[in-house]
């Protein structure tokens, strides 16, 4: 009668030890993570034909611009894609020329789908009301990060590695975006 009890105790102890070992192993593996910042140059690498790489993103009244983002073009993302645990933060750095000459704002939408015809209705709003002065100017990372909406949804889409960004000018003023960097903070396992 004692042997089955002893066996049960031994099984329980070894089970607990195994659990403790797995927990410790998981803890140690989790220690080997870093937080990395990477940038994707949308103007240079995200242009969809007929636009050519490096051309400014031109937004005219009532229209939108679609950029195709493939993070696999970044060496770091390509090499560490399987080790990326989470997209922690995201924002933009931009330089905008205000062709229309009066102060306005712009918005950015994100979607897994390319070729949308009505991004304001079909895609997920990522940034809205980014102010562009009459003289144009820069949008810095902190300003854009503070305006990010739907962060969790955006994280899921960005983690896939390929997605589309739709940029809209508000208020019917023409804009030319000379520089648009998508800045991502990633937690990466080693």
């Amino acid at each position, binding site marked *: 009668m004692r042997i089955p009890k002893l066996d049960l105790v031994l099984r329980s102890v070894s089970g607990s030890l195994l659990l403790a070992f797995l927990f410790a192993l998981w803890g140690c593996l989790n220690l080997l993570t870093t*937080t990395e910042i990477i940038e994707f140059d949308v103007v240079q690498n995200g242009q969809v034909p007929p636009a050519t790489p490096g051309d400014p993103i031109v937004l005219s009244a009532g229209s939108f611009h679609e950029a195709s983002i493939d993070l696999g073009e970044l060496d770091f993302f390509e090499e560490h894609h399987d080790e990326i645990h989470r997209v922690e933060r995201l924002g933009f750095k931009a330089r905008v020329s205000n062709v229309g000459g009066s102060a306005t704002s712009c918005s950015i939408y994100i979607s897994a789908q390319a070729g949308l015809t009505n991004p304001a209705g079909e895609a997920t709003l990522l940034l809205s009301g980014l102010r562009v002065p009459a003289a144009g100017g820069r949008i810095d990372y902190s300003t854009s990060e503070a305006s990010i909406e739907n962060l969790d949804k955006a994280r899921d889409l960005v983690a896939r590695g390929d997605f589309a960004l739709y940029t809209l000018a508000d208020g019917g003023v023409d804009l030319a975006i000379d520089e648009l960097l998508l800045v991502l*903070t990633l937690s990466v396992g080693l």
Partner: protein
Amino acid sequence: MRRTLNFRLPAIAMFVALSSSAQALPDAFGIGQFEFGGGLGYDFPLAQDDADLGPSLHLRTRLGLSPRFAGEAIFGWTLNGDGEIPAGDAVEAPSLMTGHAAGVVRTGGLGFATLVRLGLGWTRLSLPNDVESLNKFSWEVGVAVELPIGPVRTEIGPRFWVVDLGDNTRKHVELRLSGVIPLF
């Protein structure tokens, strides 16, 4: 020669004062004795592009449970410096607020002691501009040298501090200068 003496006299006086005050303090935790204090630190985030070195502040309460063992509650605030994106803009670091319960083992007693501390608890990690706040499990391991100064049990030493974000960890090394005084 005279110049050397001028420096030596205050140094000797300070050494005597510190030695006598050190001997005046008990060389062990008082059982049931409650102590309170706080201190400053300097935090080194490990492998985090979006955070840089920065100061920290903490409050500490301690209850002696045996001559060699005490329990502590520690509350801390850390303000790391900004990180930087490759294109040059600053990335404001997350702010960190921590509450840990810790066990402290004390060894030594010849005017100074060595403290080993293990703490578990919670850290609130807040991204700037109210983008997101996360409350997560965190833990710390630390060592310190205790150098009593007057009625204050002063200690200095590093701690290794880990915030577990589930699928990621944020790791810090923090050098802390801290002091507690017996209340009752």
